[in-house]
């Protein structure tokens, strides 16, 4: 269970971004979470609710998760395949010279802030 730790890093980065953009309330945070990132989205949103409501900047702020499918690349036949389904072995040529192209992201995609035109 490391999602709470991750939530603290998200809060730190969102605070930084809010300050840089002169924002005093954030209503939504959108995360890109890779399928093989080891982060469990449901745990993340639960931990988020608990921790975010303790921050004035983030009261009621919703955490949304975009799941990024994991894709691997085979160096032998130079084709892509679904990592979760086939693991390290290429389904096209059965080669083992494969690496992850994407799918281990834990990144803040964007934040949503109330838009009050002055």
């Amino acid at each position, binding site marked *: *269970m*490391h999602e709470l*730790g*991750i939530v603290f*890093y*998200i809060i*730190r*980065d969102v605070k930084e*971004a809010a300050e840089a*953009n002169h*924002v005093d309330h954030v*209503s*939504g945070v959108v995360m890109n979470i890779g399928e093989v990132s*080891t982060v469990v989205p449901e745990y993340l949103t639960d931990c988020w609710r608990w921790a975010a409501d303790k921050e004035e900047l983030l009261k009621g702020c919703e955490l949304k998760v975009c799941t990024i499918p994991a894709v691997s690349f085979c160096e032998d036949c130079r084709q892509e395949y679904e990592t979760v389904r086939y693991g*390290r072995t290429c389904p096209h040529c059965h080669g*083992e010279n494969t690496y992850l192209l994407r799918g*281990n*992201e*834990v*990144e*803040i*995609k*964007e*934040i*949503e*802030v*109330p*838009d*009050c035109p002055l």
Partner: protein
Amino acid sequence: MEPIKIIEIKKSIFADNNIDADELRDELKKKGVYLLNLMSSPGSGKTTTLIRTINLLKDKIRIAVMEADIDSDVDAVKIKEATGIPSIQLHTGGMCHLDAEMTRQGLDSVPMEDLDLVILENVGNLVCPAEFDTGSCRNAMILSVPEGDDKPLKYPLMFSVCDVVVINKIDVLPYFDFDIDKCREYVRMRNPKAQVIPICAKTGEGVDVFADWILREVENWKK
């Protein structure tokens, strides 16, 4: 509905830590202090292995240990009593890993100018410590025989970030279907560069190989 504005961020939550870790490594290089990050599951034998290893090295180089595996100071006290070297307890507040900032805070409380080697006993966990660069010069991990030879398949990231994989508790090999050759092969698949060192921390068998590896690393770091 209230109108909202979207601000694009697109930043990995590991980004700041990676910068902190690189800075810390640069500083360690300048000071000629080698930081080794030791990881494993709980109970694989980190503390026992450290005591054996330190006793082989302490007359050759100046060593300190930073203990983070558990929040109580039993391991730190055990190491100090069994080796006589300085050993401090880091308080992780229940975090499942250490990051570069926490490691730096720990280093601030050891006498860096009087040391050649600092060993960090990381939190017992095979997932998160692999994701957070501590700023160490190298990572080592311990896999113990009862955990099974297929751990490299289940925790690929951990094995891919380690330069050394110590296989501990080889005294119990007769009681488990742990195949060392198979394990070597699984490690190689994840990380062709990793060295595999079988040991028994209980009797000390093989620990000299690990100690020699550390000694060479420290010498190279100081060049």
